[in-house]
C-alpha cells in the first residue's frame, strides 16, 4: 500500500524521521518496502496484517511502536459515539453472517463541489483521482483509518413518509447492477447487495463497489453514508467472480474489525461537514453481535524459549506498551487484551513475534543446534540416485533436466496458464529424445564426438509416481527404474561442481570448417598454428578441435575442426570463407604446408 510521509506525520506531535529512515524502520521491524519515491513509501503489507495495516493509521501505529514515539492522534482508545440516533433511515441486515455491522449516517443540505488543494494533493500522492468533496472525504478516511466507506445520494432513493430504508440482502441469480463507473454486472445469489428496501433497487455491491443509481453528483444535497463491515470470504469471492477488485474489496477481504466502522463513520461525517457543509441528522447502527474483547497470554519463559533470547519482563512490557496493548503481568505471565483491530493476535506465538520483531531480530544471537544422539537416516532412493549419477558421469554422460509437462500422458493439469503441454509425462524418453537431437546439432561447439546424456526424474504412469533413469546416446533412448543399491551408514563423498562463473553462450548458428596441414614435428609449431587461428578469426572462433594427427618422417599432419559463431548475428559462409583464406595464407607464410 502507498503511504505518504506527510500524511503519517498527522498522527504524531513529534517530528518523524525522513522517508528513508521510516523505510528502514519498517523493513526490519514490520514490512518489506517496495519503493520510496517523493516521500511516498510503497509498503508490502503481509497477509496477516491486512486487518489493521492497510491504512496510514495502521502504519503510524507500527512506527509509534518501532521508533518509540507516542501516537498523538486517532489513538481510538475511547468508544466512538454515534449520536444522535435517527429514525429517518432504517437498516435491515438480512444476512448477518455476511454483514456483521451496518451503520448509516444521514446528512442534509451538503454542497457538492471540488475538494480543497490539500485533500487533492493527499489523494493524488497515493495515485488516487480527486472526484468531489464528498467522495474524496470517504476515500480520505479509508486511506486514513482503513475503513471503506460509501456515500449514497438520498435524493435518488425512494422515501416513505420521509424515511429511507436500506436492506442488505443476497442478489437474485441474474439480477443486474450498473456500478459507478457505468459498467453493468450480472450477479449471483452468493453475492451480497445493498438495496433501497422500498423499491428493491440495488444501490451497491456490498464491500466492492457502489451503484450508479444512487451516485453523488453536483445536484446532490442529502446523503446517506455507509460505514459497514462485510464478511471477508464473501467479498473476496464476489470480487473474484466479477473480476472487480477495488480499494474497498481488497480491505474487506482481509477481514476488518467491525469496531472500526464506528470510528470511520465519525471521521467521515466530521470531514464532510467541514468540506461540504450540511447538517448531520443522525445515525443508525445495526450491530447484532458486537466484537468480544479477546485475551492472549504468554509467559516470559516461552518468549525466550522460542526466540532463544534472554529478554527481561521489562523488555516485554516495554514492547507491549509501545504497541498500545492493554496487559497485565503476574508471575512472569503476560495477559494481553489486543487492540480491537489487531485480529491477528490469537495465540501465544503471535505475541512472541511481536516481541521479537519490535525489539529486532538482530537481538537474536546465532546458536548452534544441541547435540543429537540419533544418527540421521540414509535415504536409499537418494543414495541410489547419487550412485547412478556418479556411475554415468564416469562413463561420459552428462545430466540434464527436461520438463515434466508433456504432449501426452496419463494425468493432465486442469488449469495450465499457458495452455501448452498440459500432461504430466509418463516417460522420460520423449524429452530425452528431443534433448539428444538438439544437442547433436550443437555438439561441435563443445568439441563432442558424440552426445551422452541422462536424466533422473519423476514420471506418472499407471496411477503411480515413480523416479526413472533415462539415457540417450548413439544406441538410442531408453529408460529404467533407478537401480536401488544398499546404502551404508553415510553418503559417498562424490565430486561437486568446481565451476566459478557461468559463461553465456551464443544463440546464433555456428559454422564448422576443417583445415589440415603438415608442420615440423615440434611443440612450437602446434602453438604457432593455434595462434594463427586466434589472430585471424576476428573473435568468432568458439572452438578448435584437433580431430586427427599422424607423423611421417620429421613432419606431422594435423587436422582441425574450427567452429565459428557470433554472439550478435548469424555468420555467412562468405565471411567464414574469407577468414579461412587468411588463416590458410598465414599458415603457408609460416612455411607450413596446407593439405
Amino acid at each position: 500500500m502507498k503511504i505518504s510521509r506527510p500524511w503519517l506525520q498527522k498522527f504524531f506531535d513529534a517530528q518523524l524521521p525522513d522517508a528513508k529512515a521510516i523505510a528502514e524502520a519498517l523493513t526490519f521491524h514490520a514490512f518489506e518496502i517496495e519503493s520510496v519515491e517523493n516521500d511516498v513509501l510503497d509498503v508490502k503489507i503481509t497477509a496477516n496484517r491486512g486487518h489493521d495495516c492497510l491504512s496510514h493509521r495502521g502504519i503510524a501505529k507500527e512506527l509509534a511502536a518501532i521508533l518509540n514515539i507516542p501516537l498523538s492522534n486517532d489513538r481510538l482508545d475511547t468508544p466512538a459515539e454515534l449520536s444522535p440516533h435517527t429514525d429517518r433511515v432504517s437498516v435491515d441486515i438480512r444476512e448477518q453472517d455476511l454483514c456483521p455491522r451496518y451503520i448509516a449516517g444521514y446528512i442534509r443540505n451538503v454542497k457538492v463541489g471540488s475538494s480543497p488543494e490539500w485533500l487533492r494533493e493527499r489523494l493524488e500522492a497515493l495515485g488516487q483521482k480527486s472526484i468531489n468533496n464528498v467522495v474524496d472525504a470517504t476515500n480520505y478516511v479509508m486511506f486514513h483509518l482503513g475503513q471503506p466507506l460509501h456515500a449514497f445520494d438520498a435524493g435518488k432513493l425512494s422515501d416513505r413518509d420521509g424515511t429511507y430504508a436500506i436492506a442488505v440482502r443476497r442478489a437474485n441469480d441474474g439480477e443486474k447492477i450498473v456500478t459507478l463507473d457505468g459498467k453493468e454486472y450480472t450477479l449471483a445469489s452468493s453475492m451480497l447487495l445493498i438495496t433501497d428496501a422500498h423499491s428493491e433497487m440495488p444501490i451497491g455491491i456490498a464491500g466492492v463497489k457502489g451503484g450508479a443509481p444512487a451516485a453523488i453528483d453536483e445536484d446532490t444535497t442529502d446523503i446517506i453514508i455507509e460505514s459497514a463491515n462485510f464478511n471477508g470470504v464473501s467479498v473476496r469471492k464476489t470480487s473474484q467472480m466479477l473480476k472487480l477488485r477495488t480499494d474497498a474489496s481488497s480491505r474487506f477481504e482481509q477481514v476488518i474489525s467491525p469496531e472500526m466502522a464506528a470510528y470511520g463513520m465519525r471521521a467521515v461525517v466530521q470531514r464532510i461537514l467541514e468540506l461540504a457543509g450540511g447538517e448531520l441528522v443522525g445515525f443508525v447502527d445495526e450491530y447484532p453481535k458486537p466484537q468480544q474483547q479477546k485475551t492472549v497470554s504468554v509467559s516470559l519463559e516461552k518468549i525466550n524459549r522460542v526466540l532463544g533470547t534472554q529478554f527481561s519482563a521489562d523488555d516485554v512490557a516495554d514492547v507491549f506498551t509501545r504497541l498500545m496493548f492493554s496487559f497485565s503481568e503476574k508471575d512472569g505471565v503476560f495477559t494481553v487484551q489486543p487492540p480491537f483491530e489487531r485480529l491477528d493476535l490469537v495465540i501465544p506465538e503471535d505475541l512472541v513475534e511481536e516481541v521479537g520483531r519490535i525489539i529486532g531480530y538482530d537481538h537474536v544471537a546465532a546458536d548452534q543446534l544441541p547435540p543429537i544422539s540419533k544418527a540421521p537416516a540414509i535415504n536409499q532412493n537418494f543414495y541410489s540416485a547419487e550412485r547412478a549419477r556418479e556411475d554415468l558421469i564416469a562413463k561420459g554422460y552428462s545430466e540434464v533436466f527436461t520438463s515434466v509437462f508433456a504432449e501426452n500422458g496419463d494425468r493432465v493439469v486442469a488449469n495450465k496458464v499457458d495452455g501448452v503441454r498440459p500432461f504430466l509425462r509418463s516417460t522420460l524418453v520423449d524429452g530425452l529424445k528431443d534433448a539428444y537431437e538438439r544437442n547433436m546439432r550443437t555438439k561441435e561447439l563443445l568439441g563432442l564426438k558424440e552426445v551422452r546424456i541422462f536424466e533422473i526424474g519423476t514420471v506418472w504412469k499407471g496411477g503411480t509416481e515413480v523416479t526413472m533413469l533415462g539415457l540417450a546416446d548413439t544406441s538410442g533412448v531408453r529408460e529404467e527404474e533407478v537401480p536401488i543399491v544398499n546404502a551404508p551408514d553415510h553418503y559417498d563423498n562424490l565430486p561437486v561442481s568446481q565451476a566459478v562463473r557461468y559463461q553465456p553462450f551464443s544463440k546464433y548458428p555456428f559454422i564448422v570448417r576443417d583445415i589440415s596441414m603438415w608442420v615440423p614435428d615440434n611443440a612450437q609449431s602446434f602453438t604457432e598454428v593455434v595462434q594463427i587461428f586466434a589472430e585471424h578469426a576476428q573473435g568468432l572462433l568458439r572452438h578448435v578441435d584437433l580431430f586427427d594427427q599422424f607423423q611421417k618422417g620429421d613432419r606431422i599432419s594435423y587436422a582441425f575442426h574450427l567452429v565459428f559463431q557470433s554472439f550478435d548475428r548469424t555468420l555467412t559462409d562468405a565471411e567464414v570463407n574469407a577468414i579461412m583464406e587468411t588463416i590458410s595464407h598465414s599458415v603457408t607464410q609460416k612455411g607450413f604446408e596446407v593439405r
Partner: protein
Amino acid sequence: MHRGHLHPISSLIREANRIFFDMGFTFAEGPLVESEWYNFDALNVPKDHPARDMQDTFFIKGEPGMVLRTHTSNVQIRHMEAQLKKGVQPPYRMVTMGKVFRNEATDMTHEAEFFQMEGLVVGEDISLAHLKGTLEHFFRELFKGTNVEIRFRPSFFPFTEPSVEVDMRVVGANAPEKLRDRWIEMMGAGMVHPNVLKNAGVDPEKYQGFAFGMGLDRLALLRWGIDDVRLMHSADLRFVNQF
C-alpha cells in the same frame, strides 16, 4: 572418454545434503502430485484464506483435491507423520530437496517448475537462535573462504509463527560476483506454527521447532551468474557442461 557433467542443481543438492547430514539432518522425500491437505490445510493454510492465493497452483484434472505441490513444505508433515508411525518422537532434523511448481508464465527469472530446499528441526527447546546458527553454518560451508553474514526481517507465512525473511551477505574476494558484498534475500523461515505440529500429530505443548524453505534455482543463478532460469530445464549441454 572424458567424465560427463553433473547438473548444477544436483551439485547444489549434493553439497547441501552433505552439510546438513553432518548436522544430523535426514534427507526426506515427498510426492510431487500432492493432496491439498498436505500442500495447504495441514500447513495451516485454510481454504478461502488469502494466503492460498499467494501461490498459483496447478490442479490435476479429474482428481479433485490433488495439486502439483507448490512448495516442499508437504514433506514437513509427511516426515513427522512417518516418524510418529514408527513410534519415534522428536527430536527431528529433516531436509528435503526437490521439484515444486507454480502456475505462472515463464521468463528469464520465472519457471513453472523449479527446485526448493526445505529444512525442519523439532525438539523441546529449538529456537529462532538455532535457526540463525544453522543457516549461518550452512552458508559458511557452502561459500567456504568467504565471510557470510545472516540477518532476519519480519515476514508472514501461514505455517510459521514468528516468520522471517532471511538475508545473506557474502563478503570477500572469493565471494561469487552476484552475491558479493550486498544483502540478498535468500529464503523464508520461522518457528513452526503450533497448528502444523498438531496436524502432523506432534504435541505443540511439548515440542517446538523451526523450518525454512529456499529456491535452489535462484541460489544457482546467484552463485554462478546464470542469466536465465530456463536454462535449468533446457537440457542443453552448452549450459550443463560448464559445471
